[in-house]
């Protein structure tokens, strides 16, 4: 009977094309708005590294002076050089890396390719294993290069192609800011985690361009590669020593530390370690605000950085409100449609249809409306995604359709339509079998 009811549903839709169009478009628009905003929200708030996100941690310590000028209870998001290096040096956890953004100029030394600025980060060798960065060629630099600050670099696939064409990139030289660096590995272009959770604030934001250059931390410090990101200084005495050296010695924060622990349970021990470090430093007169530290796993870090834009959340709420109104509208239209068909239902009942049969027939008809509404909704979703993507380059990246969303759009449309159809179908079920049908 399912196939028969399906055919009946389609037939009924064709009978009154205006009413059908009204129902289908209404449902489609509501579904489209909701799916588009939900997709963006989901992409923004998803876990970028689910199998590990509870084992990767970023500490924050409160370096600010204890005056009322900054009442925010949260410590700064970044660390000062002194603290980053000290915490890293304590060798806690399975792997660690300090991290800061750099943008060294690359001089390819070719007349056809003038110098340009790259987008990069200075990291320890552990970085690549910690964040499961895939290589297409070679790998990270050696532990020796990592400690001594060797002149080595890892580049991204697209940069390697731009610089070397089809030639073998491993072992080639790249001139970063007057010095030559040897390429030890090439990172796959496919590595494109959104949001860029590991360098949230070092760069231009959570969803913008991927870095193409990875420089050993020790090397970047030795070469005094300027930070490409934000620096916050809390003491006016911070500028006494000039230049990069002054920056290292100051209380300005411009670095991040990531630690990989063996298991999520080890976080408590690391917290104790942080507290102990701060207590020790307080004896030297630092950390005047006391024991104010944080230790975030990946999701906590994203939260602290407020990756999910308020506006996106608001837009999602509004879109679902819209869907609700569309649903109510669809209920009304379906109810009107089924009511107009009371006569036919009465005849069918008289001829032996049970209430269940009437229920099945009309619910399936609602499902057909949902299916067609889903198709309309799919097309409209693309429109909404385009609208959302115009808000920023970040959102343009996120506002994309994938297979999950494709299926979800249809699913939402059908479920919504079935829900909307419950009341009208229940009403249809109540129609008494009748010989006299014109008694309206």
């Amino acid at each position, binding site marked *: 009977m399912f196939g028969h009811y399906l055919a009946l549903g389609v037939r009924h839709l064709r009978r009154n094309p205006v009413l059908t169009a*009204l129902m289908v478009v*209404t449902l489609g*628009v*509501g579904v489209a*708005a909701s799916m588009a905003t939900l997709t963006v929200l989901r992409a923004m708030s998803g876990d970028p590294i689910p199998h590990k996100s509870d084992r990767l941690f970023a500490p924050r310590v409160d370096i600010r*002076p204890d*005056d*009322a*000028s900054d009442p925010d209870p949260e410590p700064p998001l970044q660390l000062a050089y002194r603290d980053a290096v000290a915490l890293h040096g304590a060798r806690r956890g399975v792997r660690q890396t300090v991290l800061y953004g750099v943008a060294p*100029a690359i*001089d390819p030394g070719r007349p056809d390719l*003038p*110098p*340009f*600025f790259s987008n990069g980060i200075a990291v320890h060798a552990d970085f690549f294993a910690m964040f499961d960065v895939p290589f297409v060629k070679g790998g990270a630099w050696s532990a020796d290069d990592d400690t001594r600050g060797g002149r080595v670099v890892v580049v991204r696939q697209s940069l390697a192609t731009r610089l070397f064409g089809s030639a073998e990139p491993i072992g080639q030289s790249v001139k970063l*800011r*007057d010095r030559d660096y040897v390429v030890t590995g090439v990172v796959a272009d496919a590595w494109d985690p959104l949001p860029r959770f590991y360098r949230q604030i070092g760069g231009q934001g959570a969803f913008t361009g991927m870095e193409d250059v990875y420089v050993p931390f020790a090397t970047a410090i030795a070469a005094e590669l300027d930070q490409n990101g934000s620096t916050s200084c809390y*003491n*006016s*005495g911070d*500028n006494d020593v*000039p*230049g*990069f050296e*002054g920056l290292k010695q100051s209380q300005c924060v411009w670095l991040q530390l990531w630690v990989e622990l063996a298991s999520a349970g080890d976080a408590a021990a690391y917290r104790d370690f942080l507290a102990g470090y701060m207590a020790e430093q307080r004896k030297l007169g630092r950390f005047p605000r006391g024991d104010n530290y944080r230790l975030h796993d990946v999701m906590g870090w994203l939260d602290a950085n407020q990756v999910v*834009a*308020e*506006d996106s*959340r*608001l*837009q999602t*709420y*509004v*879109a679902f*409100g*819209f869907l*609700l*109104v*569309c649903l*109510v*509208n669809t*209920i*009304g*239209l379906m*109810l*009107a*449609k089924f*009511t*107009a068909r009371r006569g036919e239902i009465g005849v069918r009942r008289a001829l032996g249809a049970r209430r269940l049969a009437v229920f099945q027939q009309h619910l399936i008809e609602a499902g057909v409306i949902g299916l067609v509404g889903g198709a309309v909704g799919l097309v409209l979703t693309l429109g*909404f995604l385009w*609208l*959302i993507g*115009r*808000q*920023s380059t970040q*959102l343009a990246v996120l506002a994309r359709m994938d297979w999950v969303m494709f299926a979800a759009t249809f699913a939402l449309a059908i479920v919504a339509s079935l829900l909307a159809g419950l*009341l009208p179908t229940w*009403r249809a079920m109540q129609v008494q079998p009748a010989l006299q049908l*014109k008694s*309206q």
Partner: protein
Amino acid sequence: MHLHPILSALLRSKTGAALIVAQVALTLAIVCNALFVIDARLATAARPSGVDDAGVFQLTYYGIGTIPDPAAMMQRDLEVLKAIPGVIAAADVNSFPISRSGWNMGLSADPTRAESVIGAGVYFSGESVVDAFGLRLVEGRDFEPADVRELTARNGNLQADTVILSRHLARQLLPDEATVVGKTIHLGAGADAHPMRVVGVVDTLMSSSGQASPDAHRAFILPVRYFSDRAQYAVRTAPADRARVMAEAEKALTALRKDRVLTNHRSMSEIRETRYRQENAGANMLIAVVVGLLVVTAGGIVGVSSIWVSQRRKQIGVRRALGARRSDILRYFLSENLLITTTGIVLGVGLALGLNQYLVSHVELARLPSGYIVAGVPAMWALGVIAVLGPAWRAAAVPPAVATRTT
């Protein structure tokens, strides 16, 4: 208006009426809040930054390595820029308003009280920022060459003895003073606070972050020429000349040296567009939803009313046969519609306030001003009437002969 029979007729077809009521209520609630958000977003995007948007552009170069002669570089660059025909003013500058990249420093009126420090955006240049940005001085004067300090990036503190404040910042620092020119304020607070004399106040100047709150208007200017590996200039022209001058300036400066790369070359209009892209597009998205809501609700009223009219054809025919005029039938359906939409509106007002309350606590939204509800109510009434006009007209057109037909 014969309310009673209309009411009792409606109560018999409760569900259809209830659904319209629900739609009207939900739509009113969502539309009021959405319009509020749209207005707020568009208002943020319309704020003047203080800069002459149509006439100013940015030009930035970064040294590939260390620049050996930054002072000479800057001098030469400025000479070349000022020589281009059409250039009204040019200045080396550290950042641009609402460009999302810049410096923030704290100022205090009373350096002994650290909590009185106010963070503000800072602009510094060896030339006139007021001229290069096209700012408007409302008190005092611009800097003179004697005020200018020089600073190399890798040594020393950023400070000067004179400062120009934005009006908003001046009022916050020295609220009790009628005039602030000549007064002293400090960079920072405590023992290291550096005193500065206010020489001028500009009408409007926004910080580089250009955030939505009024704090974005906290900004000040220091007469400091800053030498680093970066050469960044603000150039102002007449709006008609800007495109040409932009191209010429880039060509001229690029030709001067080979040891640097062009990293930024955009007009103030572009900077503004980038900064407010989210507000504008977000507002557009919400506008699309608002329009959609109104259309859907109107469509629903049209649909349900049409069905009611066709269901009651015989009844209408009987009424006409008994002496009702067309206008009576029209009035009947309009009254019925008004009753339904009014119920929906009453519910909708409560829903709008409730929704607003929810949004205030879960998303950054302010309280809904009553003006939106006051405007929304007649709008929904109008929507209802317009939507029901078609079906009501058709109802009025039902001929009295229908009464006697057996169906």
